[in-house]
C-alpha cells in the first residue's frame, strides 16, 4: 500500500486530515479508520504526535507526519524535514489574562516573569531570544489554569482558533511562530529508500 515504506502518523488533532491526505495519495486508510484501538497497520503506525520523531529517528518508521511545533520542541532529532503539508495550522503564542497585565507588571517590579507551558524549550528560547528573564514552569495539560490560579503570570501554548484562550479570560500578547504539519524521514531510509520516498514526495507535491 505504501510502496514498502512505513509511515508513522499522529493520533490527535492532525489525525483526520492526515488520513485524508493518505487517501488522496492512494494509500487506503479504511482499515485505520475502522479500528479505533489498533495501533499498527500494514505500512502505517499510529502514535502520539510528539512520539512521531522518535519512531522515525530510530527507524521504526521510514517516514512520519507531525506538527512543526513538535519538531521545534525536539530540535535535536536527527530526521529530515521534507515537506510542509499545509494543514494543521496553529500558532505558538504568549497569552496573559485579558483584564490585567501581570506579565508587564511583574517584569517591571521583579525583572522576570513566570511562564507556564507544555513547551519548556520553546518558551525558554523565546524569552532568552528576546532578552527577557523568565522562570519556566512545565505543566502537562490545561495550561490555561496557570494564570487564573496564580501559578504563572502568562502562558506559552499552541492555539488554533483562540477559543480556549477566550473562554479562560486570556488574550494573545505575542506570536512566537506558526506551525503546520510536516513530512519527516529517517536519514538512513532517506538514502537507502530514496526512490520510494521521492515517488511519494512527488505525489504529495502534486496535491498541493
Amino acid at each position, binding site marked *: 500500500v505504501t510502496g514498502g515504506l512505513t509511515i508513522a502518523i499522529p493520533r490527535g488533532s492532525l489525525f483526520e486530515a492526515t488520513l485524508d491526505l493518505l487517501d488522496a495519495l492512494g494509500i487506503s486508510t479504511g482499515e485505520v479508520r475502522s479500528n479505533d484501538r489498533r495501533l499498527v497497520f500494514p505500512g502505517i503506525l499510529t502514535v502520539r504526535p510528539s512520539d512521531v520523531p522518535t519512531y522515525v529517528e*530510530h527507524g521504526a518508521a521510514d517516514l512520519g507526519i507531525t506538527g512543526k511545533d513538535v519538531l521545534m520542541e525536539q530540535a535535536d532529532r536527527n530526521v*529530515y*524535514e521534507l515537506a510542509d503539508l499545509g494543514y494543521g495550522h496553529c500558532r505558538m503564542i504568549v497569552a496573559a489574562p485579558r483584564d490585567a497585565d501581570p506579565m508587564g507588571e511583574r517584569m517591571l517590579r521583579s525583572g522576570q516573569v513566570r511562564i507556564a507551558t507544555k513547551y519548556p524549550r520553546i518558551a525558554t528560547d523565546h524569552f532568552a531570544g528576546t532578552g527577557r528573564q523568565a522562570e519556566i514552569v512545565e505543566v502537562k495539560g490545561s495550561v490555561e489554569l496557570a494564570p487564573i490560579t496564580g501559578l504563572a503570570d502568562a502562558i506559552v501554548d499552541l492555539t488554533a482558533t483562540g477559543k480556549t484562550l477566550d473562554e479562560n479570560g486570556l488574550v494573545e500578547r505575542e506570536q512566537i511562530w506558526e506551525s503546520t504539519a510536516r513530512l519527516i524521514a529517517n536519514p538512513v531510509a532517506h*538514502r*537507502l529508500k530514496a526512490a520510494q520516498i521521492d515517488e511519494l514526495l512527488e505525489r504529495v507535491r502534486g496535491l498541493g
Partner: protein
Amino acid sequence: MIHPVPPGTRDVLPDEMRELRALSGSLHESFERAGYGEVWTPALEYEDVLRRGDENAAGAGFRLFDDRGHVLALRSDPTIPIARLVANRYAGETEPLRLSYFAHAYRAVTRGSGQAREFLQGGIELIGIGGAEGDAEVIALVDSALTEAGLRRHRIGLGDGMLYSSLLAESGIDGERAAPLLESLWRRDLVGLEAQVDGLDVSKPTRDLLVTLPALRGGPEVLDRVPEPGAQHLRAVHELLAERGVGDRVIFDLGLLRDLGYYTGTIFEVLDPAVAFALGGGGRYDELLGRFGEPRPACGAGLDIQRVHVAQIEEGS
C-alpha cells in the same frame, strides 16, 4: 542491590564481548593487511590541544582538572589526537602514512535514550595522499573491511561537504549570509532551507538548484544535475571506486554535511538497512594537520563498532 552506572555507559558480558572482539579483530586484520598500522593515543588530552584541531574541541563533553590545574578533556573523536600524534612523531616526513585505531570516545548526550556517552570506534587515517586517490583508498578499504566482517548490504553515502557552500558563494552568498542556510542543511530541515532560499536575490535556475540539490541522492546520474565543475571531484572518486569494484556501493548524497568542523571536501557515511543510524563515516580534512604545524592532506574514516555489530547480527539472522 543495584549500583548504577552513568547513563549512556554499560557493561559488556562474555558472550557479547567475544563477538565484539572478533569483529574488532576482523576489521583490524583488514586494516593491517592494507598497511594501516595501529596506534594508541591517550583518552585524556589537553583541552587546548583538542581546540587547536576544532574550535569546540570536536564536541568534547567531559572535562576535568589535573593536579596542576590544567584542563583535560576526554576525547570525543579519535582524529584530532591522531593529527597531534602525526605532528609530534612524524614531523617533516613526506611519505604517505597509514594509521588505524580502536579506541573509546566520549560525548555528552543531551537526550535520554539510544545514544551512548562512551562508544568504541575503529577506523583509519590516510595522511599524505590528497584528492580523489586518497578518498577512494579510504572508502574502498572501509567497504572491504565491512564485507570481510560479514556485512552484505552496507552502502556508502558519498557527498562533498564544500559543494553547497561553494554554490552559495558563486551566487555571491557567503560568510554570515550563508551560515543560516548551511545550518538548515546541516539540521536536514529542507522546508526551512527552501524558505530561506526563496528569500535570496538569485536567478530562477540558481534558486531551483539550491532547493533541489540537498535532496539529490542516488547513482552517478545525479551528478549530471550539478553545474560543472561542481561534481568533477565526486566523479573522479566514483571512477576510482568503480576501478576497485566498489562503485555500486556508492549512493551519492549531494546534501550531505557532517557535524565536525574540520572536513574540507569529500565526506561520507556508512549506511546499512539493519541500523537506523549511520554505522560510521569520515571524509577529507586537508587543513587539520596544518593547524598542528604539519600541513599535509589527509582523509579518514571511523566506524561505530557497536552499530556494525548490530548490522552483523542482522546479516546472520
